[in-house]
């Protein structure tokens, strides 16, 4: 399964007022389901955003399918954005557009021009059904009329409607009830399997992440503290990693942090 790298982070540095990323080197392979863990504020969202050039690193570069995100030309970047679907942490739906129009924006402009209304409607319909929303019910609603979990799922529908090769999930299941969490996880798995989609999943649901992913990493102090298989993650003796794996270790880590 592990073939050529489709995403390569190379020496990614980013500082806001304080350093956030201090040299991230990471290859994500085609068809992989990659889990990214880390404490709040560790820079997971920042790293994910550099993948499609939403945040420009101070140093370093990201390559997607061999094309540079930051040193290539505008056309390369547009192509990269067309084939990458991004699920935002807080959904980020367009306020002034209804659910249908929101999902429709997920279709690349050039493909949209070549499609008739029926085909667009069918794709949007399918995407909504895939995230367990009833299209008939939500299609014409504005984001303000949806619950948090529904917004999140519309955000996922927008990311998958264009049939992306790569999906970046920023906490896809945070704030969802158990049934919907299971539904979204199944969706992530199915997309990865059936469509050969490469997924990078940022999540605080460590158990879910370890179960789903074939490789995981942990971001800490601006670097990758851990990189390896879920089994190795579970077996790691690193106290910080342990704190993420079991509750008792987390309690111990709280004391450790408090005393240092």
């Amino acid at each position, binding site marked *: 399964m592990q073939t050529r790298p489709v995403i390569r982070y190379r020496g990614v540095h980013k500082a806001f*007022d304080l350093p956030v990323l201090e040299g991230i080197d990471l290859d994500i392979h085609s068809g992989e389901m990659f889990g990214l863990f880390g404490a709040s504020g560790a820079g997971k969202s920042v790293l994910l955003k550099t993948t499609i050039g939403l945040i420009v690193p*101070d140093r370093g570069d990201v390559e997607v399918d061999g094309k540079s995100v930051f040193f290539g030309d505008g056309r390369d970047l547009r192509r990269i954005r067309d084939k990458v679907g991004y699920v935002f942490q807080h959904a980020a739906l367009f306020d002034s557009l209804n659910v249908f129009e929101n999902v429709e924006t997920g279709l690349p402009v050039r493909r949209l021009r070549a499609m008739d209304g029926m085909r667009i409607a069918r794709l949007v319909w399918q995407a909504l059904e895939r995230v367990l929303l009833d299209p008939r019910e939500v299609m014409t609603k504005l984001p303000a009329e949806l619950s948090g979990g529904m917004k999140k799922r519309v955000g996922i529908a927008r990311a998958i409607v264009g049939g992306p090769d790569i999906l970046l999930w920023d906490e896809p299941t945070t704030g969802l009830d158990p049934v919907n969490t299971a539904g979204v996880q199944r969706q992530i798995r199915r997309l990865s399997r059936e469509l050969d989609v490469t997924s990078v999943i940022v999540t605080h649901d460590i158990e879910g992440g370890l179960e789903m992913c074939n490789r995981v990493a942990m971001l800490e102090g601006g670097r990758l503290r851990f990189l390896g298989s879920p089994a190795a993650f579970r077996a790691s003796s690193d106290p910080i990693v342990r704190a993420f794996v079991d509750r008792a270790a987390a309690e111990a880590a709280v004391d450790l942090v408090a005393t240092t």
Partner: protein
Amino acid sequence: MLPTPNGLSRTGWRALVPQQVTQGENGRHEEHWATRWAWFGTCAVRGFPAVTGRSETPSRAERWLAQVARAGRTVLQHSGEIAILLRDIVAALVGLRVSPRSILRQMYVMGVQSIPIVVLTAVLAGIVTSQQGGYQFTGAIPLYVLGSIVTESVVLEMGPVLTAIVLVGRVGARITAELGTMKVSEQIDAFYSVGRDPVSILAAPRVVAGIIVVPVLVAIANLVGILAGMVSAQLTVGLGPNSFLYGARLYWQSWDLFYSLTKALVFGFTIPVVAIHMGLRTEGGAEGVGKTTTQAVMFMTLAVLIMDALFPPLLLD
């Protein structure tokens, strides 16, 4: 080496002004202008002791330097970002990536919906000028001169400037708050992520609409202001419409209208540009939106007043 971002202008500009002292490949500080610049930036943000590692309080010279660095950085950032925004707007227009429908929609929101408040302001402006003039020269000067005073004040100053100030509040603040909210809720990022360009979708229609709509609003304000002044002159000092218009025509030059509408055009361009710029650089949740909206209103008001003051020396010569 600094990244040369493509189509990522806003964040890209900031990447040119790193806030960290960058470490060279060999671990030493690179002797690059950007490194030194960044050092000043870091000092500005965190103070000298944090950077130099000295614990004593910074000297007055150091504090002053840090202040200058901070101010310089802010000015550079704003001007650079506005320049890039303008470049991107022009590129969007030239590339025909701006939908006429959204321009029309913005013209409706910014123009048609502003007519009542603009008319009300113009009526009051006309009345006030007329009363003021009538009060000041009953006596030696023939009364019909009041017609010219009112007309010229309304067309040259009151019409464009008061309309612009009203639009700062009604249109400018709205744009900043709207785009600022989109920025902090990641909707701007979301546009980029689905391969859409927020500058063509959000910024360009607002600027084009401003350029078209504000001169029309100012023309309406001029007309209404003169009429209100005329009615007021009749009621307060008994100057009839015929004498009023006689006075108005006596000193009228067609250049005056051109001057008035040029002002309107400049304001109609500046207000949305500043508003959009401030909206897009919003950070930090609802509080951030409040902050940039207030700042934007201040900048827009100042810009209108300063440009108004610059107009006579630039255009009347």
